[in-house]
Each structure stands twice: as C-alpha cells, then as structure tokens.
C-alpha cells in the first residue's frame, strides 16, 4: 500500500498522516460498531467509538474507571441522562426501532461489542483520539469524575437535544473520523438536511428526543449549568475538532455531488475512497435488516458480488482475515433477531459510506416487512427507495396461482323461473304430438241439396213446358252479322264447317249452332265437314243426322257424298290447318268412309280455301278457334269466317271479331236463342234453344241464389270460426 486513501476526497495520503493533506479530513477511523447495533441496520449506524468492559485493561485509568462506574453504580447517572437512557431503553426495539445512540447501551453505559476489541485496543494506544471521545459519555455516568469538556458537553445537551452529541463530536476534535464530524454538524443543520447527512441511528435519536423534548428539557435545564459557560471552557482538542467539523462540512458539500443515494456509479466511486480498514467490513455486513438499497429476496448474490467488486482493494491483513463467509455466518438471520457481538465488525461503516446508501437516506428508519424483503427496492430513478413497485425481472411479475372460479352459476329466483319455463317449452317441443287432422266437412247433404235444386230447376221447365220467362230481346251485333252472312249465301254454295268441340260441351254447342245450321241448310249449300279434334267427325255426323241433337237440322236429311263431305280428322294442329289452308285437297284427300273426297260433288270446283263461300268454325276452345283464324287468314281471301263458340271462350274470341278477322259470332245458348229469335222458320217451329231457354233461365236463377245465400252464410260461419279460433288462441 502506497498510502492511505482519504475517505472524503479519495486521494492518497502518506500513511503517517492522520489528516488528509488535501481536505484535512481524518484518515484514521476512530469508530467502532455498537454492541447493540440493530440488525435492521446491518451496517454500523454510527462509528462512535465506544469502550467495552472487556477492554478495560487496555483503556486508560479514567476510562476504565468509567466503565466500572457505569456497570456498578447506575444510580449515579444524572436524571437527565437517566431519563434519556431510560427512554431509549424503554423504547428501543432491537429489531425494528432505529438503533440507539452508538456508544450508549441500554443502560446508558458505553458499550463495545466483541468485534470492537481490535480497534478498541488500537484506540487505547491512541489516547489522543480515544480519550476525548469516550470521556464525555463516561462523564455522563460518573458525575464527579467527568472532565471539563465533558461538562461542557453536558451543558450543550441542555441547550438542544442533540447538542450534547454535537459537542461530543466537537470534543473529539481531530481524533474523530469524518462521520463524527458530520455528527458534529447536525445541531446547526435543519432536520431535513440532518436526515440526509446524518446516519440513521442519529436521525432516530433526534426523532425520539424530539418527541420527548418537552419532558426532558426541564430536567436538563434544572440540573445542567448554562451552556455558555461550557463553551468557554472548550479545550484545544475540541477546537481542533471544530475545525475538522468545518472541514467536514466542506467535504460534505462535495459529497453531495456524488449523489450517492441514487446513482450507483457514485457509489462505486465512493467505495473507491473507502479506507482500508473498511474494505473487509462491507461484505460481512451484507445481510441487513434495514432498508438496503437492493434487497435480494431470494438470497441473490448480485449485491454481494457488486460489493465484492467495489471493495476489491487492498485491505489490511487483520481485515483480510475476516472472510465474507464468516461474516455471513455471524450475521443474524431474521428480521427480529438482535445482532450478536460476532457481527459487530460486519456493521462497521462510517456515516459517509452509510450516507452513500441511497435508500438509507430516503427511507429513513423504514422497516422492511417480510413481504417487502421478498421484493426489490428500486435503486435509481423516481422510484428509488420504493420496494415492490416493479417486478423482479421482465415477465417475472407477480406470479400467482390463477384464481379458481366457482363453477356453480349464481342465478336469481327470477332467472331460475325463466330457465324452468324455457326448459318446459323445449321439452314440449321435442315430444311428438298427434297431428290434428283438419276436418273438412264434406257436407254431402249440402251437395245433394245443391244438385237436387239445380236438377229440378232445369228439368221441371222441360217436363212441364211452362214458360217462366220471356224470350231475350237482346240481339248482339256479332250474332246479327252472322245471321246476315248466312242469309246472303247463295244456293249450292260450298261452305266449310269445322267441328272443333269436345263431346262434353256438345250440348251447348249443338244448341247454339242448331239455329245457324238450320238457317244455313235451308239455303241448300254444299257442306264440307272437317275437324281438328278426333271426336269432331262423329259429332258432325251426329249434328246432321241425330234428331236428339237437333231435329230441325236432322230434318234436312243431308246425304253424305251428295250434299256434304266429311273429311274427317285433320291432324297436325296448326300445321295441319296451314296445310289445309294452302292445299285442302292434299291435306285431307279422303272422306270419312275412305272415298276420294275431292272427286265428290260437294267439293267440285274447290281447289283452295278461298274457294269456299264461307268458313264456319264451331269450337269450344279458344286455341283451336285462334289457329283457324291465324293460319287460314292469309289464304282465305274474302271468304268470311263465322264462329259458333261456347260462352266460356267469348272473351278470347271476341277480339278477333272486333279486329274484323271473323265476320260473325254466335256465343253460347244465349246467342243461339237470340239467333233463333232472329231467324223465324217458315213453319214457325222453334229449335232447342227456345226449348232450353226456360230451363236455362231457371237454372241460372237457382244457381245465383245458391251462390249468394251460400256465400253469405259461409262468410258468417267463417267469421265465427275465426273469432272462436282467435278466442282459443288468446
């Protein structure tokens, strides 16, 4: 070792110097940890040199006598000191409370742990530094034996609560280390500043004494002499101590630049200025129960390693022998265990090192709970000194067992009711139900009644011959045109008659066509019969010969092959009609009985459709009538087309009449009856239309009444059924 590093400025000084040649700070420490240093603090709170009873042999006489007096006669302690010591003894809590004043044990006597034997011994070899430091405290216990400077210190204690301590530090003079110089500067500094610069044990002491100042001050004032006289008697060594304090204050200002409480690099720099005698103490005092800068909750070794690096400097032999493991073994475990004398050395740290511990100054006297010990205290930043704010590491936050939620659904009574109702609904839906067959009352009786009424309405007029109605006075214009055209046909004129109706509607068509055919046959034309329906040829023969169809027509007794030719069935639908319109002879070359039709007399001179004098279409189907109009219209020339149609196709055929494509039209039974009323036979016989007219009129009237009454009744019953159904639904 080339020299001694100054604990304040960190500069190297020769070993023979006691004070730093640069900052005039004390180079040789005088402090020793207290025997009752709290394990919370870990590090020595105050380096106040104390004496031990064990080391009394090494101490000077006055100091050894002080130790005996302190141990044997406690009644000799003055009241103010007794109250102070008693208060501390009563309020001191080894585990959590801040450590009492170093150098004073619970009984008010000076104390020194076993670990302090070495330095105590060295302290004994240096009477200049040890004597003034221990004398004031021993003077508190031995009244008559205290020196003057101690009496002055006692007077200072009366002036202010911490003044004795400050004066005590002053009395130490140049022999006290810099931590003690900080201690000496505390009386004049504000409390806030004291908290930053003073060690924790001193801050706690101030707090305690501050609370008890009201009680203790009168005692001090009554028993102690005025402080002014004591200051006058300050010895020279104390003056020197005062000078050291001033120098320490300057050095303290420099220490603020380190900002050791928050910046770790400053801590490293500070540790570089540690004296040799402190190099080996720090690792031993690592387990701390106070509020360290970084708490290794899981026994982490990071702080220790850091300290190892920081304290890896040359240390004296006597300190190098003290291994960190030994210090750790001597370190008490648990927060509440008081420190044992074996770890006294581990808690030796000067106040300025202690001040560099950031959290010590920020969280002064805070006691870490076991939970807080398991957390990390922030070292830097705005969260410095706060523990448990941030997780230990990224992604290692509060690892806790996921909460277990109850699987039982908490429902209210109302919700339970609704759930039950829904369950009932669903269960009813899943059950098969017998489908109610909608009973449609066939009401056979009503059907028989309707049938009977209609039959009676039609049959009775026919049977009885009672005329219940008058002949229709209406003469539709289309019927009149047809009548005019038939009347204008020349004799023996070729006329094409198309039978395109089904047997089902033969009664209507025959009745409607009979007057026209009767009128036509009276003209004596040559008839050519053809049909696009398979049943048409048979219906044509029936109309001409069957008296049941029309006695008047049958009465003409037309002969096949002579007056008429039946060409039979014309296949092909529209194509057949077109083909017949273009070339009638090729489309229907044979008669119904297989003869060459176009060689027969009725077809003489007929080559094409336009050679016919008239084309009369009897149809009950709008399509067949439309086919004849459309396909034959282009080749028929001036030959008129007349139609006898069923009443049901009137709306579809009537537009062709309006357009002039057909020249005359007889519609249904009403048209036939109108035609019969128009055409009056010479013998005044009436046709089927007149005979059926009464039955037709009565039948329509009955049908109308049935529909009207029945519809009203059905509407009423339907309304009542819907009302009853809606009532059941509600």
């Amino acid at each position, binding site marked *: 070792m080339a020299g001694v590093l100054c604990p304040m400025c960190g500069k190297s000084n020769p070993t023979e110097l006691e004070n730093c040649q640069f900052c005039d700070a004390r180079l040789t420490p005088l402090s020793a940890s207290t025997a009752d240093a709290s394990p919370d603090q870990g590090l020595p709170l105050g380096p106040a040199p104390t004496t031990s009873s064990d080391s009394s042999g090494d101490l000077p006489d006055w100091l050894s006598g002080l130790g005996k007096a302190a141990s044997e006669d406690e009644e000799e302690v003055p009241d103010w000191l007794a109250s102070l010591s008693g208060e501390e003894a009563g309020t001191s809590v080894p585990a959590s409370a801040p450590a009492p004043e170093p150098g004073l044990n619970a009984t008010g006597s000076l104390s020194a742990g076993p670990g302090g034997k070495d330095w105590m011994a060295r302290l004994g070899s240096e009477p200049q530094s040890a004597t003034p430091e221990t004398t004031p405290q021993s003077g508190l216990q031995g009244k008559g034996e205290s020196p003057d400077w101690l009496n002055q210190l006692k007077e200072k204690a009366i002036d202010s609560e911490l003044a004795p301590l400050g004066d005590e530090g002053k009395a130490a003079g140049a022999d006290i280390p810099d931590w003690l110089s900080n201690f000496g500067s505390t009386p004049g500094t504000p409390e806030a500043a004291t908290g930053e610069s003073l060690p924790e044990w001193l801050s706690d002491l101030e707090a305690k004494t501050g609370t008890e100042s009201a009680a203790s001050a009168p005692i001090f004032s009554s028993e102690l002499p005025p402080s002014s006289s004591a200051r006058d008697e300050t010895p020279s060594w104390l003056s020197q101590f005062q000078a050291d304090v001033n120098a320490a204050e300057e050095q303290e200002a420099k220490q603020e630049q380190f900002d050791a409480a928050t910046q770790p690099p400053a801590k490293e720099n500070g540790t570089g200025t540690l004296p040799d005698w402190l190099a080996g103490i720090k690792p031993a005092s690592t387990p701390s129960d106070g509020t360290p800068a970084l708490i290794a909750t899981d026994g982490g070794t990071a702080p220790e390693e850091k300290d190892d690096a920081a304290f890896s400097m040359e240390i004296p032999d006597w300190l190098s022998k003290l291994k960190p493991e030994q210090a750790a073994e001597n370190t008490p475990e648990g927060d509440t265990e008081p420190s044992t004398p074996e770890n006294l050395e581990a808690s030796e740290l000067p106040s300025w090192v202690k001040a560099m511990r950031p959290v010590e100054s920020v969280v002064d006297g805070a006691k870490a709970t076991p939970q807080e010990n398991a957390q990390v205290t922030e070292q830097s930043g705005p969260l410095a000194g706060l523990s448990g704010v941030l997780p230990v590491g990224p992604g290692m936050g509060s690892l806790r067992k996921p909460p277990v939620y109850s699987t039982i659904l908490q429902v209210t009574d109302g919700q339970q009711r609704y759930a039950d109702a829904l369950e009932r609904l669903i269960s009813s839906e899943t059950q098969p139900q017998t489908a109610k067959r909608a009973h449609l009352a066939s009401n056979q009786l*009503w*059907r028989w009644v*309707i049938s009977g009424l*209609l039959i009676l309405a039609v049959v009775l007029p026919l049977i009885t011959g009672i005329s*219940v*109605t*008058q002949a*229709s*006075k*209406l003469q539709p214009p289309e019927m009149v045109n047809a009548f005019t055209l038939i009347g204008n046909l020349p004799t023996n004129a070729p006329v094409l008659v198309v039978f395109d109706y*089904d*047997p*089902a*509607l033969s*009664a209507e068509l025959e009745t409607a066509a009979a007057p026209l055919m009767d009128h036509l046959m009276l003209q004596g034309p040559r008839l050519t019969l053809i049909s696009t329906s*398979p*049943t048409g040829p*048979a*219906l044509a*023969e*029936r109309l001409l010969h*069957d008296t049941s169809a029309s006695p008047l027509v049958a009465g003409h007794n037309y002969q096949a092959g002579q007056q008429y030719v039946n060409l039979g069935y014309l*296949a*092909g*639908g529209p*194509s*057949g009609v*077109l*083909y017949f319109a*273009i*070339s009638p002879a*090729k*489309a229907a070359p044979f008669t119904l*009985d297989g003869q060459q039709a176009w060689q027969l007399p009725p077809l003489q001179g007929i080559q094409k459709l336009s050679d016919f004098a008239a084309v009369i279409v009897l149809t009950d189907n709008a399509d067949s009538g*439309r086919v004849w109009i459309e396909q034959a219209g*282009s080749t028929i020339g001036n030959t008129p087309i007349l139609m006898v149609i069923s*009443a049901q196709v*009137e*709306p*579809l055929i*009537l*537009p062709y009449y*309006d357009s002039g494509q057909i020249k005359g039209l007889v519609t249904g039974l*009403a048209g036939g009856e109108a035609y019969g009323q128009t055409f009056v036979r010479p013998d005044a016989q009436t046709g089927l239309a007149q005979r059926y007219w*009464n039955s*037709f*009129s009565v039948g*329509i*009237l009955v*049908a*109308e009444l049935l*529909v*009207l009454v*029945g*519809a009203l009744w*059905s*509407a009423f*019953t*339907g309304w009542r*059924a819907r009302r009853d159904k809606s009532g059941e639904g509600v």
Partner: protein
Amino acid sequence: MKRTSLLSSVIAIASTAIAIASGVLVLAGYFFAQKADGQASLLTNIRLTLLNWAIILAGFAIFIGILSLFQVHFKKIQNKQKGSVYSLLLIISLVATFLFGLVKPGQAEKVFTTIQLPVEASLMALLTVTLTYASIRLLRRRFNLLSVIFLVTALLILLGTAPLPFLGDLPGLSDWVRPFLAHVMAGAGARGILLGMALGTLTTGLRILFGADRPYVGNK
C-alpha cells in the same frame, strides 16, 4: 366414347341445320308463295312438303300415344299397382272399341254417341254442381277482397246472361253491365293474353331460327 360424342355432335349440328333450314323455307314461302303466272312457287311446294311431313308425324304421334297408353296401363296391371282395376277396364274398352271398329266400321260411332258423349256431358254437369258448391264455400275458406270481387262478377254475369224467370231482363244489367264485363273488362284481359302469346310465339320462332333454342336435340 369419343366416337359417340363426335356422333352426338354431328347429329346435333345436323338437326340444328335442318330445323333452321325448315323454318327459313316455310317462312320464305309466306313471302314468295306464287310465281308470276300464279302457279305455286318452289318455296311453296317445299313448304307444303314439310307441312305434309309434319301432319304425318303428328298423326303417327297419336298412334304412338295410344301404344304408350296401352303399355303404361298394362304394366300397372302386371305390377298390381293401386288402381290397376281401372287400367284393366281401360285396356278392355280400348281393345273392344278397336275390334268393334274393325268388325263393324259403320256402327263404330254408336260407341261414341252412346258411351263417350254421355259420360263427358255428365262430367260437365257435375262440374256445374261443383262450381256452385265451391262458390258457396269460397268466402268461408278465403274471405278477402279478391274472393268477393270474383263472386260478385260471377253473379253479375249470370244475371246478365239470361232474363230472370217471371221478371225478364233486368234494366241495365243485360244490356250494359254484362256486355261491359264480358267485352271490356274480360276482353281487355284477353287481349293482353293474346298479345303476350303472340310475342312469345314470335320470340320462340326467332330463337329456333337462330339456333338459340334447340329443343330437338334434347337437353343440349
């Protein structure tokens, strides 16, 4: 497989060409029907030939239909399906009428006048009762505005068709209401239907002529 598809394609193309050519020829025959001397033109003759073929094919289709009807009902009898008794009756009537026509061709129409015509007329008479009963039940099953309009219209047409017994024609009903309904209202609807049918027929003919619709090639 490939040859079959090729043959199908050839058939499809050929049938399409034939159909289009036939349509074009028949259509052209309308515009060029006669020569200058009044004789039928070549297009007319071609058209007549095609129409004759169509008539023959349509007549033969009836014969094929009769054979198909016989086959279907015969299978029903073989399989003893429901209603096979009526199928048996149909086949017996068909065969008996055919044989009767072959044996006595002059008496064949009596079968028609004594059996078919009365049956169909009876069915039409039953239709009268059925329609009357349906009109009565209409408002019970479907009581709405259209049903009421339908019934009122039917009653007005019936009232205007024939004079009422002992009352004669109702003034304004037979000479105005009924003609208005039958000629104006119903005629308007019928004209619309006819116009639609004409346009549809024209469109269908053009599509067949252009080959857009080819119903003669099946589903292609």
